[in-house]
């Protein structure tokens, strides 16, 4: 989580931990829904890469 920007961390936290809707998060962060989706995507993608060796990817 420390590797995320404040915006990515806030968007991801609100979506995944707080389970706020994209619209609610967009309103809180003052950006449009597409930008919010992209922030969340970047956050998950960064964490996925950071945790790559630690999470099982075998089918």
């Amino acid at each position: 989580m420390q590797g995320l920007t404040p915006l990515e961390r806030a968007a991801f936290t609100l979506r995944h931990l707080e389970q706020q809707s994209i619209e609610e998060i967009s309103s809180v962060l003052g950006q449009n829904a597409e930008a919010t989706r992209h922030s969340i995507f970047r956050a998950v993608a960064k964490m996925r890469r950071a945790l790559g060796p630690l999470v099982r990817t075998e089918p």
Partner: protein
Amino acid sequence: MTHLGEEQLIAYVLGDADERARAEVDAHAAECETCRGEIAALRATLEAAADSPVPERGDDYDAAVWARLEPRLAASRAGRVGAPVNWRAWLAAAAILLAVVGAFLAGRISRNVGEPQQAVNTSTAADRRAIRDRVVLAALGDHLDRTERALVELVNNDANGTVDISAEQSWARDLLEANRLYRQSVRSSASLAIASLLDDLEPVLLDIIHSPSTLSADEFHALRARIEDRSLVFKLRVTGADVRARQRTLIHPGEKTS
């Protein structure tokens, strides 16, 4: 076989994919072991993130802060050649955290969205409330810490000749904006002590901002006296310690605050 895109898979595991997109992922994953593995890995990533504890400050936190601050003070005294602090970035981070704080203080109620989680039991709701509280305290604690460090840096200027405080005025402007936002949010909550401290900070920050950028030694001593008269550094330290203690209590519920 063409595999599904990462963005599509992330939307799927977060429950943000629409019905058609979900059906597409389900159909593809049923026949593609690679994408099934990637979905499992993404879910494991999300679970790991949810379980990630908020790091607690160690006992040597004060010493570590001082170790970082002292060389900057020395550089400042020697001719202000230290690396500039990125106050704009700090303010941006504070603004984002404030957004989270605002959501908390407004009493937003978590809602289930999407399909992965259909029910929230009492324990999970309590966990989320604890996470929210920790975010609030972390945001306020960071603001208090930054303000304390900034004031310490200012009052430790060497005032043998004229003192250029243009850099301090720049951070004071940033801190003032953040301070007003925090004060507005905190005032609506029960944190009256913190609101009172933020009230006390504003005139001092305004004093710094509206002072001449180059002060004579006498002018600087007068400014420093106005800051020290309010005991703000002490109050910031005490309130910051209280906020950190409350954070620790949330992380370790059995621990009592002093």
